[in-house]
């Protein structure tokens, strides 16, 4: 990591593991698996074999069958394919869909687009801690409901939804269940042999793999039919056309393999860092933790602070790299819609900072973040007319 910055934005993207880089580099030269895996000549077949090997590595991480994984460009594309593909495939049965306002925009905006095309979408609000009540979900499911989408770990707060209970409920009511697991795969155990999940989106760059490669898991059940949303080739079971990026897929496979081996150690590491950070800032007057500790993935800590403007807070924290409460709306400066959905005021949402850590984060990084955060809060408050 560059010495002139402290990177605490692992929930946005992780640095690539050097072991992943090494494996990818081997693909990128004339001696490597550079060929098109769809080609039937020897070089193409070699590339296809490497793609299959990476698929097996990812499948092992998820305890899934390799043939149930479709390579995509990332979680956003996976979300679009899963939601639009499943909704349109089942539209003849009914056009009612269910999701939450705290979903990532890749999910929420896909549902909004479907709503404009004649689907009916029910938006279930979380409780004050960001969790979905299964009773609320049970009441919302109707005979014509076809799909429920609830993310596993929230990208802003780290809140972990009980996707096992949600999935079981959906199965019992004959409804497909999709989860955006971009923030959990490679970090928490995701065991698709036992989880009642029909569709799952993931991306490699959240677990030390390269950007630009992800996957969609589709359960091996007759109900799990998905229609393609792009056209132009027979790749990936005709669900996702386009030449496969072999070096990215190799990177995703190696990253998945490493995540499986190191997940427990990484989890303990980020939990210790999260506790150290919280201990260092908890005494700041007016501080609110967004998401209850027991409900959250420990690699994310989201806090709001009263009387402080978010953008100024972030500038005052440089060179510590964190996400603001308006991270997904940085051009508009709008307060986080996720935090507003949890009942936070606009001011609290706007002052929110998301710290997220990973395996390269050190205690020194956390100590620097504590010092810069405290100093920036003090600086902003010294100028503020808000008392």
């Amino acid at each position, binding site marked *: 990591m560059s010495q002139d910055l402290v990177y605490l934005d692992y929930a946005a993207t992780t640095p690539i593991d050097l072991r992943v880089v090494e494996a990818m580099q081997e693909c990128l030269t004339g001696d490597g698996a550079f060929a098109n895996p769809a080609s039937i000549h020897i070089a193409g077949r070699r590339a296809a074999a490497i793609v299959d090997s990476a698929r097996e590595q990812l499948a092992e991480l998820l305890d899934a069958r390799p043939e149930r994984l479709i390579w995509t460009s990332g979680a956003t594309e996976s979300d679009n394919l899963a939601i639009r593909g499943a909704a349109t495939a089942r539209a003849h049965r009914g056009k009612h869909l269910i999701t939450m306002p705290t979903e990532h925009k890749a999910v929420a905006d896909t549902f909004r687009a479907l709503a404009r095309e004649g689907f009916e979408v029910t938006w279930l609000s979380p409780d004050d801690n960001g969790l979905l009540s299964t009773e609320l979900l049970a009441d919302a499911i109707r005979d014509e409901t076809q799909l429920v989408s609830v993310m596993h770990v929230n990208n802003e707060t780290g809140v972990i939804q009980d996707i096992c209970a949600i999935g079981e409920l959906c199965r019992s009511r004959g409804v497909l269940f999709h989860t955006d697991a971009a923030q959990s795969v490679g970090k928490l155990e995701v065991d698709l042999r036992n989880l009642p999940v029909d569709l799952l989106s993931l991306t490699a760059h959240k677990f030390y793999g390269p950007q630009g490669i992800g996957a969609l898991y589709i359960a091996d059940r007759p109900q799990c039919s998905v229609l393609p949303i792009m056209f132009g080739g027979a790749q990936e079971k005709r669900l996702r056309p386009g030449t496969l990026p072999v070096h990215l897929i190799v990177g995703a496979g190696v990253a998945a393999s490493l995540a499986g081996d190191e997940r427990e150690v990484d989890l303990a590491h980020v939990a210790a860092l999260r506790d150290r950070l919280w201990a260092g800032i908890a005494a700041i007057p007016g501080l609110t933790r967004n998401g209850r500790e027991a409900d959250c993935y420990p690699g994310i800590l989201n806090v709001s602070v009263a009387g402080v*403007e978010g953008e100024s807070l972030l*500038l005052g924290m440089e060179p510590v790299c964190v996400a603001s409460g308006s991270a997904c709306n940085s051009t508009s400066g709008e307060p986080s819609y996720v935090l507003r959905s949890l009942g936070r005021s*606009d001011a609290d949402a706007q002052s929110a900072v998301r710290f997220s850590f990973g395996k390269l984060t050190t205690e020194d990084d956390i100590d620097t973040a504590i010092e810069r955060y405290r100093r920036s809060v003090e600086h902003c408050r010294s100028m503020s007319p808000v008392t």
Partner: protein
Amino acid sequence: MAASEPYNEEVRALFENPFHAGDLQGVYPETLTADVSESEHGARLVLYAGIDDGKIAEIRFRAFACPHLVAAAEVVCREAEGGKLSELPTIKANELMERLSVPVGKTGRMLLIEDAVEKLHAQSGCAG
């Protein structure tokens, strides 16, 4: 300034050293106050002008605002201090936006500067 760099060097310097941040409560017998806000982003700016013999002897600001508006407020204070109250309206938001490389999307917030200055000026008949 690179397109990916949101703040130019002057904004960074002004934000880090806002010498005029604060208020003048109880310092001058005649202190004018202009309190303006913008609901969309919750920005708020308060200017305090200590008047002595028709001049702005001292001026301070308080801001709940983004770094650009903080920097703009500091510029206004530095330029206004010691001058005549009647000269304040020559400060224009668009000129400040150009000088501080403020994104167009922040025009609404930057207009708070003009609003605050106009409020001070409107009170000038009562001053000194």
